[in-house]
């Protein structure tokens, strides 16, 4: 049973074309939701932690939001250097239970 589902699997944008990535989850009693950026052949780089529904966090062109069932990563006016795979993960009430989505591969064309 999938705990975390990310969509779309792949997204191609033109430079400056804003869009959103989705992360839906079925974990009950969420302790935290995490967004990471992963470049090819490298470890995931931490972006955001969200704790509760309604929370928002921003970093440069990225903004993450959280509801009771999903999270969005909004990318405003993306640049080619934003191209990467974006991973979402949730932490269940049992602290050792982390569930990762399979990621959204973002490609921003100049």
């Amino acid at each position, binding site marked *: 049973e999938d705990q975390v589902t990310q969509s779309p699997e792949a997204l191609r944008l033109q430079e400056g074309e804003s869009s959103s990535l989705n992360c839906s989850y079925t974990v009950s009693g969420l302790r935290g939701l995490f967004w990471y950026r992963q470049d090819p052949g490298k*470890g995931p780089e931490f972006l955001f932690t969200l704790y509760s529904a309604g929370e928002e966090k921003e970093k440069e062109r990225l903004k993450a939001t959280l509801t009771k069932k999903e999270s969005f990563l909004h990318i405003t006016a993306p640049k080619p250097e934003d191209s990467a795979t974006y991973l979402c993960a949730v*932490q269940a009430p049992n602290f050792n239970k982390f569930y*990762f989505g399979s990621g959204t591969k973002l490609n921003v064309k100049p």
Partner: protein
Amino acid sequence: SQTIHQWPATLVQPVGSPLSLECTVEGTSNPNLYWYRQAAGRGLQLLFYSVGIGQISSEVPQNLSASRPQDRQFILSSKKLLLSDSGFYLCAWSLTSGPTDTQYFGPGTRLTVL
């Protein structure tokens, strides 16, 4: 600041050979430590986690094992590798306090079993 190291960066091993991957963390004490495996096009799969020296919990039955001989050292091992052990292995750490356990990842080890 905290830094996490993994080595080797890449490894090619024959089926049936042993494995030892090492992870070390600098700049923090008593971290939680994790081993993940990432298959191509798939999400990260948690293999082991540790809350302290000698304390290892396994999430997935397999021919892999983990050990934590020192506070900031985490080792992933196998006595005999299988083809299915190929993948990208990631070590991560998190603080032992706080409302959540934000994990910070190392650079990873690419393992190919032939």
